[in-house]
């Protein structure tokens, strides 16, 4: 017939059954389910996904147990925490009584304890090249310790001690050069081999309480002054570079490890301010939610988030580009926070507080810590995606955003809100009843007093 001649265009349909299409390859493989994805056959896609999103968000809250454990052993309140740049599980902590402890976080045990200073240990910094630890204390000493031995035996005695003239409140180390900066009555630059500062930056008479080297653009230093200022230094210059004065004092400062020109300060006025160092006219973001002075801040190593420790007995986790915190951690026994740190693998958060404990938290409250198999991982990711997709729907949003907070936080939050509303109302009334037009100052710019 015609079919068999070459000219015919007729198609002959054949039945093809290829086992590859419907049989799984191994016994451990999942069963193959042929599926028709035609949307016409699934008219209720969105409602079904909504239900799944609802379940996902509820599960997320069920599994949100961020507290992992506490490291107790100090005999006085914590003052500072130090993450070893090369060892994830090594955590150094300094206390008010001058004790320095090395912890093994994985085992939650003290590795070594040493009386480092008389009085407070104010701050510590690591030099990665020489793998040494520098501490400053109220006894006006800078001490250098070796930080190499697994058993911490090199903490027995400092390998170097520098006697300084003034009070020291903070220290930071250059990322690659053998240079460190201390702050106190002035900002001093020190070199490893010298007993005298190689450079002194002074601007005004007030003292500085926190100093940090920029880890990306390595020669830049920023410090917080007690005259409510934030000062920018360039190591190579002979004078400080820039100063911005805020309405209230900044307690701590942290550079974003992934964005060279971004840093955030923890302020006394319950807020955190993120600045672009190229524009001090107003902060690029104001992070609210704390109900008491913010004492410390640390960025996550990815630069996407940061943790803040506050005097209101809570720590909060912020997305670095959002104004409100994404999570709040607290326990009934945790007192005033003095320091916080984000682990270098981006999974944990450490907090040190007045009541002598270091606490370990998960950076993402609902994350599973154990082994996660691929299918489970996919399921978790899909759940997260679903929650993200429906995050704006009121019912899901409510569950997603809901956090139980201590009553004092809850009450003072309401109080703050009321006072804010009252202030706004008053401003509105003033505006409406004055003839002369008052200039409208954006909320962000209000915090800046002056820039020099």
């Amino acid at each position, binding site marked *: 017939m015609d079919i068999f001649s070459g000219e015919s265009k007729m198609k002959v349909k054949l039945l093809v059954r290829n086992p590859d299409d419907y049989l799984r390859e191994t016994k451990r493989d999942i069963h193959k389910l042929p599926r028709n*994805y035609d*949307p016409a056959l*699934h008219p209720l*896609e*969105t409602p*079904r*996904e909504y239900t*799944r999103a609802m379940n996902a968000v509820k599960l997320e809250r069920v599994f949100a147990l961020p507290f992992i454990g506490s490291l107790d052993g100090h005999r006085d309140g914590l003052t500072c925490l130090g993450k070893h*740049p*090369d060892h*994830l599980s090594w955590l150094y902590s300094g206390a008010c009584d001058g004790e320095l402890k090395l912890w093994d976080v994985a085992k939650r045990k003290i590795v070594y304890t040493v009386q480092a200073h008389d009085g407070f240990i104010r701050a510590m910094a690591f030099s990665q090249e020489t793998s040494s630890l520098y501490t400053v204390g109220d006894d006006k000493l800078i001490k250098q310790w070796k930080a190499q031995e697994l058993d911490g035996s090199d903490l027995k005695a400092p390998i170097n001690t520098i006697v300084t003239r003034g009070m020291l409140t903070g220290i930071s180390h250059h*990322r690659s050069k053998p240079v460190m900066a201390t702050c106190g009555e002035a900002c001093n630059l020190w070199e490893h081999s010298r007993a005298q500062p190689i450079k002194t930056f002074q601007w005004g008479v007030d003292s500085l309480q926190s100093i940090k080297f920029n*880890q*990306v*653009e390595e020669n*830049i230093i920023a410090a917080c002054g007690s005259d409510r200022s934030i000062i*920018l230094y*360039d190591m190579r*210059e*002979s*004078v*400080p*570079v*820039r100063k911005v004065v805020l309405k209230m004092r900044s307690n701590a400062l942290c550079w974003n*490890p*992934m*964005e*060279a*020109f*971004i840093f955030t300060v923890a302020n006394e006025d319950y807020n955190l301010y993120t600045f672009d*160092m*190229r524009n001090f006219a107003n902060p690029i973001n104001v992070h609210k939610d704390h109900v008491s002075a913010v004492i410390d801040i640390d960025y996550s*190593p*990815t*630069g*996407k988030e940061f943790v803040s420790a506050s005097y209101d007995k809570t720590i909060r986790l912020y997305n670095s*580009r959002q104004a409100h915190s994404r999570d709040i951690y607290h326990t009934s026994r945790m007192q005033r926070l003095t320091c916080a740190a984000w682990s*270098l*693998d*981006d*999974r944990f958060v450490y907090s040190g507080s007045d009541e002598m404990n270091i606490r370990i938290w998960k950076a993402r409250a609902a994350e599973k810590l154990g082994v996660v198999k691929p299918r489970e991982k*996919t399921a978790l*990711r*899909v759940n*997260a*995606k*679903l929650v993200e*997709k*429906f995050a*704006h*729907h*009121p*019912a899901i949003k409510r569950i997603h955003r809901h956090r139980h907070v201590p009553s004092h936080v809850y009450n003072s939050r309401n109080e703050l809100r009321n006072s804010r509303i009252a202030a706004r109302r008053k401003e509105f009334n003033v505006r409406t009843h004055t003839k002369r037009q008052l200039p409208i100052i954006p909320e962000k710019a209000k915090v800046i007093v002056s820039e*020099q």
Partner: protein
Amino acid sequence: MSKLKILQPVEDKQEFLDIDEAASDDGDEQKHEKLLNAISKLGNKKMKITQRTEPVSRINEHALVQVGSGKSKTNKIKVDDLLNVIAEKPRLGALKKAVKQAKSKSSTLKAPLEKPQALRVERAAGYEKVKDEVSKWDDIVKGNRVAEQLIFPLDQPSIKMQSASDFTAKFKPKTPLEQQISELLRCNRHVQAENEELTPAEKEALTSMSLKEALARRRELAKSRALQSYQEAKARRQNKIKSKTYHRLLKKEKMKNHVKEFDSLKEHDPQRALEKLEQLDKKRIEERMTLKHKGAGKWAKLQAIRSKYDQNARESLADQLRLGKEVTRKIKKPDDESEEDIPSVPLEKSDNPWLGGSLPDSSHPTTEVTSGYRKLWDNVNKGREIKKKMNKEVKKTASKPSKVKQSHPTDEKIYDSTKVDSAENESVASESYDVQEEFSEELDEGLVRKSTMEDFQQTPEDVEMKQITYKKTSKKQPTQKIDSQVASVQAETKIATDIDPLKFISMPDTVIINSSVPVTEEGNEEDEDEQRRMTLAEAFADDDVIEQFKEEKKQVISASTPKDIDLTLPGWGEWGGSGLKLSRRKKRQFIIKAPPAPKRRDDNQGNLIINQDKNTNMRRQQVNDLPFPFRSAASFEYKIRAPVTSTFIPETAVRKLAAPKVLTKIGTIIAPMTDEVLISAAKRNKETQDKMELENRKKPTPGKYQKRKKSSLITKPTKKSKIQKNQWQITDTPATNSLKK
């Protein structure tokens, strides 16, 4: 030569004079004392003691002698003097020039700034430097912020396999053998190009025709060409014919053909018929847009002048105007016909125009007309004088039709309602209409509006009427049966009178001025109330809101009532065939009866729709405001509608969609960003650049081939420039690419 200590006052020259005078005095002691005084005085000022070795004729014992002292201060040696000395030496000519330049340019430096200011400047400069320095991270930071996924640590070694195509792309033939082979391959038509199924030779073979086909094709082409030329010749010949009658006939025939074609299409192919109709309509629209048939042309003006004396001219002018109106007539939409069955019940007088309270008093028909006129008159003050003058003129030369109208105002009514046979009268009448129309073009608005007020009580046919006379008749006998002929006459006038008012407002008619028809505008009384209602009517002339509202309500009610659900399958369980009725069993079993509709709150309220669909429980679950990154509700809804789970989309797609923004590796330290990232980013950019370049090179540009071929011989400058341009383009493109990254 002797060493001299010379005192030089920095500022004051007066001191010098004193010393000079003192030196010239005789008394030695006095002189000495004075000198000492002067010196002590000088001591208060800033004195500079310089030591010089200079030849002096007389050596003062006190060794405190001013150079050049004794005569005058003008005797001081200046640089110019010294230069004069060396002027003879040609080698030192340059020195003179340099001194001159230094003199002209010299200016005192400014005093250094105070310390705080100086520090401020230094800080500002330092800050600028730092700012510039950190700005190099801008691109990377921005890129990371918007990245779909970031994998930390960032500086991971990129493991990549080099594919064969990559290798071949970079490969350049070096040895003579390689070059020979590559040359062979490049020029050969039997080598398959990349991404192509066939070689050029194969392609050619496929596309080539057989001889038979080629001949047939040529024949066809020749035939069509001949036909075309015949047609062109014919058209040219026809264009040359000057006879007007011929062209008129041609036009008519064309028109007839069009109509015939349309009729035939209407039966067979409604789609195309519609298109045809649209085409015709477009023509009409074009006509409406032009000034044709408006009486504004040269010919029309001439005719207007003639029309005073010449009956023919008048007729032709009227004819032209009628034509114009015909094409500019507003076409009633078919849905207006549904109004026909609404009885024309005169309602009580009210302000609402569609309640029809505006039924004018039939005893004063003329005042209505004139009030309309007056309205416009008042608006157009300028033309008033002219018109009046013209009126006088017209009255003087009052012609027959105007007389008829003036003297027998009821005559027309009679004519309209009953058929008048006399041809003369008819022509006269029609003429009068025409003239009146053309006269009233400017005022047409007024008339139109008046009639539209009555639209709401009358049948659509009546609605269309603009002529006062017809209105009167319809008012008088709204239910009177008019015989078909009259109806046809009416229809004709309707056609002539239904005019888009806007069109005519914008077009001042030139014919009016010279027309030989009297103007009637006696009515002076103006009813305020009437006017107000009229304007309302104007505003809503085209709406039939009540009807729309009723329709809407009906729809809402029907939408809210539950309906029977029919689950029957035709032919299921029964014998098939046409015209079968559903059995009672099936009806009972498969048609789910809807429950009776709940009572609506707006059942008895005719002019009210109460929306009862609002579901507050549902509302609580929905998103109130548009979330931040979205710009429109549509895009947000689209995002929500798109499924992300594997039930609805393939597993691979799910994985891609659910990929987390940030990926970290357990137990890996993430170090802060380093310069290497900057470098690697630059490298990546360069790589892409190279790739682009390679791709471009792969493209067979004619210039390139020639260059290759003649590389051993000569390279023409034009080719070279072309290639360079090309290369420049290549380097330019990846810049944008890197931005995207």
